[in-house]
């Protein structure tokens, strides 16, 4: 009797599987464990994670790590993934020509037209001219109301713009009701004496006049030529609850298209493609190019910098010279990123076109032998580097009940999506594709404008709910869940994530539906695209129809919705597809570690 441990060091987790080899060559599985990978995959610092996982696994069966007689390490695929994002457009407001935002409590409703008059200059106002008064936060609501009421008899005040969040307070104290917009942070940038139009939407509606070019023309008395130039302003105000449009000569909203640059593919059929052409076109060119040796970007452009950054990051991590790093695959995804508009007065953002790219870098063989050597010394056991990762994963996946050869596996990890097909004769075809869990996190982070990768990762992992009272939450699928003990008021009214350890609060005020939508789209864009791409490469005759079974393994196969998305898509090709269940109990994880233990028997024979 001897204990054999299979160890799979992945990008994010280290998996261990321990089995007992009987004299007749059969394997009896005893225990398994998983720990976070310490350090970058394929470096000696991984040994800490390996030891922790081994200890955890052995303690489950009341044994010590010393009892293990053989450790089998995976020959990790020498690919590392990285992601980058670049915006393609930018919006600029010139001459403070507009304010369009959603203050939580504006006051009054309707439109007003007038010349901007700063409150400190109110004594200089001329009777008979309509004015829109702008007041900074240094004036209290009572002072503002008093000044406006006093001047109201002599001056024609049609609307008010406030810096502080006090619109309702001012309105309640005014004798004459006018529309009031508040929470305009950069009120000091408002030019005095300029004709302006303001609008506050009715409750439950969005503005109607200022989001319509002819509406602006009507209010500000514009000719046909001027109306044409305000069209972008109107467009950018659609959907807002309040807005100000100023009639400044140079004032405009402009969308700049940034020079994105070309992507060069050094491949079987070398090609180049402009980033502007969008993700679909880029992916078409990538797939037509055949075997890719390296991908670079046009120097001094966004995309050039993007690829340079990826390569630089890789060389730092890997220790190889920059020139030796080759990007062998990319996955491009179209996305929209909310970016603060330059020249904005109230922190307005605009959805800019952007493209996210996951790149896969082939490195030299990872120094697995060094890790093996270190483990051998520290644990005093036999350590062997055995087998190619994808082959081991296939072996492990075959322990899923209900599978048989030929079989395709889809290993969805953090950095890359790998596919393998094993034929009935045991022949294995494998491929590695750029783009997996990390690209999904990046897309979620940018599209929601979170600026925080950690929370994006959690949004990817957990379902959403809205805390509707102190005793119940509404889950994203509409289900209500009641809670015995009152929910912490910090979560009240918020969108939260339902994690194992309780609620995680999402700080940014984004509707639950929007977050769910972005999350699902990101997963679909990355995993559905990649699943098809990967399987097509390994399928016999490159035809998906020649695949009958697909087993999903790897960390992202554990996701609560990705497997279902893929199942739906593959059902159109009559492919049986599902989450693997390694050894009938492990779920989609532990495939490689299990395969490593199993392969021991094959080697002995």
């Amino acid at each position, binding site marked *: 009797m001897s204990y054999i441990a299979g160890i799979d060091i992945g990008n994010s987790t280290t998996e261990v599987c321990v089995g007992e080899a009987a004299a007749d060559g059969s394997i009896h599985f005893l225990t398994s464990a998983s720990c976070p990978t310490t350090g970058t995959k394929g470096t000696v610092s991984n040994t800490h994670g390996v030891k922790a996982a081994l200890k955890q696994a052995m303690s489950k069966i009341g044994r010590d790590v010393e009892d293990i007689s053989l450790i089998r390490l995976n020959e990790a695929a020498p690919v590392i993934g990285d992601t980058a994002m670049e915006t393609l457009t930018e919006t600029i407001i010139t001459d403070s020509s507009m304010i369009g935002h959603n203050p*939580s*409590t504006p006051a009054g409703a309707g439109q007003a037209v007038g010349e901007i008059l700063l409150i400190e200059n109110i004594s200089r106002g001329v009777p008979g001219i309509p004015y829109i008064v702008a007041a900074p936060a240094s004036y209290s*609501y009572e002072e503002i109301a008093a000044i406006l009421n006093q001047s109201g008899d002599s001056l024609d005040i049609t609307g008010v713009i406030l810096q502080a*969040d*006090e*619109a*309702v*307070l001012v309105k*309640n104290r005014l004798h004459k009701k006018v529309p009031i917009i508040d929470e305009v942070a950069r009120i000091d940038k408002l030019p005095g004496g300029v004709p302006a139009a303001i609008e506050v939407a009715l409750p439950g509606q969005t503005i109607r006049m200022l989001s319509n070019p002819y509406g602006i023309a009507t209010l500000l008395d514009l000719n046909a030529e001027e109306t044409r130039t305000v069209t972008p302003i109107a467009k950018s105000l659609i959907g807002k609850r309040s807005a100000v449009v100023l009639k400044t000569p140079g004032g405009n909203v402009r969308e700049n298209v940034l020079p994105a640059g070309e992507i060069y593919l050094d491949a079987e059929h070398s090609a180049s493609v402009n980033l502007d052409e969008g993700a679909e076109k880029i992916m078409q060119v990538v797939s037509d190019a055949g075997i890719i040796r390296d991908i670079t970007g046009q120097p001094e452009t966004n995309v050039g910098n993007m690829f340079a950054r990826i390569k630089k990051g890789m060389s730092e991590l890997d220790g190889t010279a920059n020139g030796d790093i080759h990007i062998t695959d990319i996955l491009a995804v179209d996305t929209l990123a909310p970016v603060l508009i330059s020249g904005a007065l109230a922190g307005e953002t605009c959805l800019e076109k952007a493209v996210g790219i996951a790149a896969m870098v082939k490195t030299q063989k990872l120094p697995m032998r060094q890790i093996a050597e270190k483990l051998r010394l520290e644990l005093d056991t036999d350590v062997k580097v055995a087998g190619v990762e994808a082959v081991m994963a296939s072996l492990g996946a075959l322990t899923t009940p209900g599978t048989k050869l030929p079989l395709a596996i889809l290993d969805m990890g953090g950095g890359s999506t790998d596919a393998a097909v094993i034929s009935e004769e045991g022949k294995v075809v494998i491929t590695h594709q750029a783009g997996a869990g990390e690209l999904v996190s990046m897309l979620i982070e940018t599209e929601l404008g979170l600026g925080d990768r950690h929370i994006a990762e959690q949004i990817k992992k957990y379902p959403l709910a809205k805390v*509707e*009272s*102190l*005793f119940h939450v509404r889950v994203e699928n509409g289900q209500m869940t009641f809670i015995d003990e*009152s929910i912490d*008021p*910090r979560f*009240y*009214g*918020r969108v939260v994530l339902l994690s194992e350890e309780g609620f995680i609060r999402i700080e940014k*005020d984004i509707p639950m539906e929007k977050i769910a939508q972005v999350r699902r789209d990101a997963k679909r864009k990355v995993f559905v695209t990649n699943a098809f791409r990967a399987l097509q490469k390994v399928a016999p005759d490159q035809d998906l129809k020649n695949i009958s079974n697909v087993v999903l393994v790897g960390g992202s196969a554990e996701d609560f919705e990705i497997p279902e998305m893929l199942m739906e898509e593959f059902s159109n090709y009559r492919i049986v597809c599902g989450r693997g269940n390694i050894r009938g109990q492990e779920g989609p994880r532990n495939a490689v570690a299990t395969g490593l233990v199993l392969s021991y028997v094959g080697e002995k024979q």
Partner: protein
Amino acid sequence: MIIKKPSIFIYANEPDAAVVKEICAGIEEEGVFFELNEMENTNLKELAWNAANDSMLGSGIGIRGTYIAMQMRGIEKNRPVESYQNPDKEQCRKLGANSARAIKKLPFK
């Protein structure tokens, strides 16, 4: 039939005038009614808790001098949702706004 406006209750004991003014402004900006009552009780947590339970909307504020607390119906007496000792202007405004946002089911500021 007794008809009463649905309001946030504020139970106060020897309240500081400036504190009261800012709390009320916070509620007013959110567009919710409130009712201010002077009480004999000197226990801040009880003032807030009683106010929340007496209010038809289930949201109440206690003030004792310059100590303030916000409570909601259903929460333990000893665990007010939000409370301050000698708050500044912004904190008073925020506490008032939050008592209104509790009713509107909006996230607290």
